[in-house]
């Protein structure tokens, strides 16, 4: 197939074929990082700006490495250092960046839809590195890539996502990507954080973890933000771990060869116990490795699209 999008904003926008195409492309790029010389000239002569209006370490480092391995020229911008503090609008800031003949803007922002808004108003490409609770497409793609690599397929698998679903862009992007590729998706966690409205798009919702884990091929344990406790979503991290954490006893509900995933950073012994995070079912660090391949594939596809 021919890639035609200048932006990657959300998996909701993509077809199953487009998602598969990104995964296939990432397989090729994964080999690059396994070589002695970890660099290809795919984006040589192109300039990428990493614009993180919301702070990030792991995603920014992953994007930066992906860009370097594609031989792109890179500029990093953070909100604190940008003109946003001087009262400039976001659109003016990115228009100024574009006026420097930049090819791609990788952006993270706390407001849902911020990247869609700027992408509409820019001719250069925009890659969403996370917009509020809305979307984090490259995270979901690396999760799905990891599942496909281990299981050989996505269609028909039972995937359970556990935790703070309502505030999670990782959950939303995984849901769209997995549904488009034919997986059975369950979301689970405290009732205050698992909106029933997801059932309208064919996702099962669950507030009992045993039920949610029964027969799962994959379980993705989302990070729990401690500030949600003070906001009244659950009583304590201890109670959270007791009812919604993955521990040795609950592993029996999963299929024996089930994958245990986590988008990081982990709160050990809250979302899952340390021994499970480090155990044989865990693919948490492989997710990180695959993130690099996915970001290389995405940057290559949108960076080389014919405008």
């Amino acid at each position, binding site marked *: 197939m021919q890639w035609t999008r200048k932006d990657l904003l959300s998996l909701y926008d993509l077809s199953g074929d487009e998602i598969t195409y990104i995964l296939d492309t990432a397989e090729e790029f994964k080999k690059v990082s396994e070589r002695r010389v970890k660099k290809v000239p795919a984006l040589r002569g192109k300039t990428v700006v990493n614009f993180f209006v919301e702070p990030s370490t792991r995603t920014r480092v992953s994007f930066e490495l992906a860009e370097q391995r594609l031989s792109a020229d890179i500029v990093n911008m953070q909100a604190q250092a940008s003109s946003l503090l001087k009262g400039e609008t976001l659109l003016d800031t990115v228009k100024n960046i574009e006026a420097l003949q930049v090819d791609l803007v990788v952006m993270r922002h706390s407001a849902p839809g911020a990247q869609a808004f700027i992408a509409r108003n820019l001719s250069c490409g925009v890659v969403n590195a996370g917009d509020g609770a809305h979307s984090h497409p490259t995270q979901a793609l690396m999760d799905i890539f990891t599942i496909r690599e281990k299981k050989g397929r996505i269609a028909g698998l039972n995937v359970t996502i556990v935790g703070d679903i309502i505030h999670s862009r990782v959950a939303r992007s995984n849901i769209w990507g997995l549904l488009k590729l034919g997986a059975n998706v369950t979301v689970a966690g405290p009732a205050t954080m698992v909106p029933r*409205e997801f059932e309208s798009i064919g996702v099962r919702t669950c507030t009992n973890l045993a039920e949610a884990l029964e027969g799962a091929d994959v379980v993705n344990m989302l990070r729990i933000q401690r500030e949600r406790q003070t906001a009244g979503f659950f009583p304590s991290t201890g109670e959270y771990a007791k009812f919604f954490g993955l521990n040795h006893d609950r592993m029996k509900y999963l299929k024996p060869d089930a994958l245990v995933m986590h988008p990081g950073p982990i709160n050990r012994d809250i979302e899952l116990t340390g021994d499970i995070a480090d155990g044989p079912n865990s693919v948490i660090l492989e997710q990180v490795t695959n993130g690099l391949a996915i970001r290389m594939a995405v940057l290559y596809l949108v960076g080389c699209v014919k405008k």
Partner: protein
Amino acid sequence: MNEYILKNARIIDPGRNIDCKGDIGVDAEGRFAEPAALKAPKSVDLSGKVLSPGFIDIHVHLRHPGNTLAETIATGTAAAAAGGFTSIVAMPNTKPAADTVGAIELLHRLTAREAVVRVLPCGCMTVGSAGEEMAPIGSLKSAGVVALSDDGKCVQDHALMRHIVEYAKAFGLPILDHCEEAKLSEGGVMHEGKWSVLLGMNGIPAAAEEIIIARNIIFARKINWKIHMQHVSTKGSVRMLRAARAEGVPVTGEATPHHLTLTDECIKKFDTNYKMNPPLRSEEDRLALIEGVSDDTITVIATDHAPHTRTAKMVEFDYAPCGIIGLETAFPLCFTELVKKEVISLPRLIKKMTVGPAEVIGIDNYSMAPGNAADFTVIDPEAEYVIDKETFKSKSRNTPFDGRKVSGRVVMTAVGGKIVHQA
């Protein structure tokens, strides 16, 4: 001024239960008159047109003083005239807020200088609409306000609210309340429901509105005084309002054209022209609102005309101000969606844009009876066109309806017999 006769129109005057073909005169003083009583009138042929009393909008933000980049009394009233409105109630959340006699006097002065339609002042319920201390309600009444509102905000202190309703009753001032429980809506930018969940946006639950609607019904019943619910948006609100009105509680409610025509799904493109408060609700809520309009639970169509500059709206959805302009699109939208689709008849729509709002603010001389000021609106019910925001008289362009195909055009508006708009 010269006398004239409006000839051959379909006259719809719901205040007098009139719907017939006929002629109406306007005398030299700018009042309606029997055609036979005029000496040498000009005639204006209105064949094929509908002649209605001038529309009344009890929910308009004129932004003057405070944000004259978005709207002024001149441009806001010109937009009203273009939309067929001859009287508008100016919400008090200007900067400074209309919470003092001085602020109302300033509004009178600005109005005298540049308004082309009647601007009826509304005063704050609380000082600065901060919800803490009662505004000088008696003095505001003496200065000429027709109602009280903290629109945009909602008094959260129920004891204070109770006192305001009691006190306002003694001065004969109705309360126009923006119903929103602030803790429930805190941080919300759109309706809480399927689409807020799918989009990862903070939701404003229906309960935030319904809890205050319930409170207001309780106070209106107990105190036996008029509380008007602004921009009713949820199914639960309609249900409570219906039950309360059936019991005879003095409560009324308004619906905006946008809540009657749009839903939360529109937000999936993150266009800030779909951001308003209360937010666009679900399709179920929209249909309940239409039912409320149809069975007269909702007696008022009001626009919540809320101008914002392009700069203010060209930002991330979370950071955009709430509100859209509505004066110039209200009639065609309602005519297209309610009358053409046979939800209500044209006379009933006109009633909700004249009699309904007039009853809320207690004015009774708005009909086309001889002797009343000749405020009227002429409609071409056959016109079909595409809304073009660049033709608006409003200073702002924040509308989600640009490019929408509609029927029914306001072709003439007159205030006191003087023609203030002609298309």
